């Protein structure tokens, strides 16, 4: 992909991210039927997490586009340099995840006076996200399998191994961040606020960290299996089968990543009732905003290419 197109796409995506402000946390929380006592804490959590996530995604997109432009300029004067779109998508999702990690992993400030703590036990298992655990196990097995197959038949096995390492690193990041969120200091709270804090931690671990990380792992897995689809360097029945498995695996994992990403939008808080209708109206407004931004940038692209 030409670097000019890449730059315009990256800026367009960044503008689209800016324009597509999600539904306000208050609407989401009301739509999900959260008890009123828990709402203020949850709204603050949602607004903060989404702000960090969006900032991370925009910053990484701009950085990736800048880096691509610099690399292309060094290579061939900035014209005709090519960058993989899937890599760009991974970078933006990675930036979004880094934003989420930055939002969730923090220390609670302490005063210098007396401190009180509850003796009730809290541990990572309390907030365990079983869905993400299950998906992660499957993805790791698929990633190891793809890496093993790439050693046998792929033209560039190093790519498969690098993607396996990246998937393992994501699993380590998820575990580390989960432990940090679960064991983050908690002051002594009334029972209703304790329930809200538990809900915030569960959401941070599942929708905030776990599921986006697992979605990125699925995207990397898709790239890994795609490498098998077109990478066979010998002829015969086995490479054909591996190639077919590569196509099926790549498309399957890409589909899974897209479905997981879609289901995880708005922190998995399913809208209901009147608030759901308000959310739908906001979604249409967002869609119109994003479409306008894309049309504007397409026009800019045509002008640039014409000049």
């Amino acid at each position, binding site marked *: 992909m030409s670097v000019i197109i890449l730059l315009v796409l990256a800026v367009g995506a960044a503008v689209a991210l800016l324009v597509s402000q999600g539904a306000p946390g208050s609407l989401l929380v009301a739509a999900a039927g959260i008890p009123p006592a828990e709402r203020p804490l949850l709204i603050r959590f949602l607004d903060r997490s989404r702000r960090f996530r969006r900032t991370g995604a925009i910053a990484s997109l701009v950085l990736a586009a800048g880096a691509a432009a610099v690399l292309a300029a060094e290579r061939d004067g900035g014209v005709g340099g090519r960058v993989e779109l899937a890599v760009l998508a991974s970078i933006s999702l990675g930036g979004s995840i880094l934003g989420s990690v930055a939002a969730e992993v923090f220390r*609670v400030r*302490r005063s*210098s*006076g*007396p*401190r*009180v*703590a*509850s*003796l*009730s*036990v*809290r*541990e990572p298992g309390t907030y365990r996200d079983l869905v993400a655990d299950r998906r992660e196990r499957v993805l790791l097995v698929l990633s190891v399998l793809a890496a093993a197959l790439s050693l046998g038949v792929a033209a560039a096995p190093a790519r498969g191994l690098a993607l396996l390492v990246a998937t393992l690193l994501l699993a380590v990041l998820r575990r580390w961040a989960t432990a940090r969120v679960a*064991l*983050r*200091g*908690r*002051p*002594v709270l009334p029972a209703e606020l304790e329930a809200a804090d538990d809900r915030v931690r569960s959401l941070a671990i599942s929708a905030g960290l776990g599921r986006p990380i697992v979605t990125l792992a699925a995207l990397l897995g898709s790239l890994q299996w795609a490498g098998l689809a077109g990478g066979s360097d010998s002829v015969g029945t086995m490479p054909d089968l591996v190639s077919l498995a590569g196509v099926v695996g790549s498309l399957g994992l890409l589909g899974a990543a897209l479905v997981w990403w879609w289901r995880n939008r708005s922190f998995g808080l399913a809208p209901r009732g009147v608030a759901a209708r308000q959310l739908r109206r906001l979604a249409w407004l967002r869609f119109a905003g994003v479409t306008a931004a894309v049309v504007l940038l397409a026009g800019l692209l045509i002008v640039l290419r014409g000049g």
Partner: protein
Amino acid sequence: MLLRVDPSLPLPVYEQIRSQLARLSASGQLAVGTRLPTIRQLASDLGIAKGTVERAYVLLEADGVVECRGRAGTVLAPRPDDGAHDQADRRRELEDAAEALAVIVRQLGLGDDDGIVALRRALARLG
């Protein structure tokens, strides 16, 4: 059940943790076999170093108040007489604490009512 520490006191924080947990165990307020928070959790909640909590747990284990069961965590050990702190011991400990409070009230030049109101408020905060 709550634990309170004050880093500004002359008594080391690990000793504050140790004495409170020992008291909760001896009085039966924490039952035998009760699981205590992990060192990391307690340190994080109190905003102190992990080593401080670890030191308190090590001393409690040496005194036979708790048992460290590896991955199963730290639990309260059975008391030697397998019974609660007897009533006389509890009263004596309470009298000592009340005397310390009374000394502070006098040193601050406050009246008896101020001391009693302060104690009632503190008890109300603990629930």
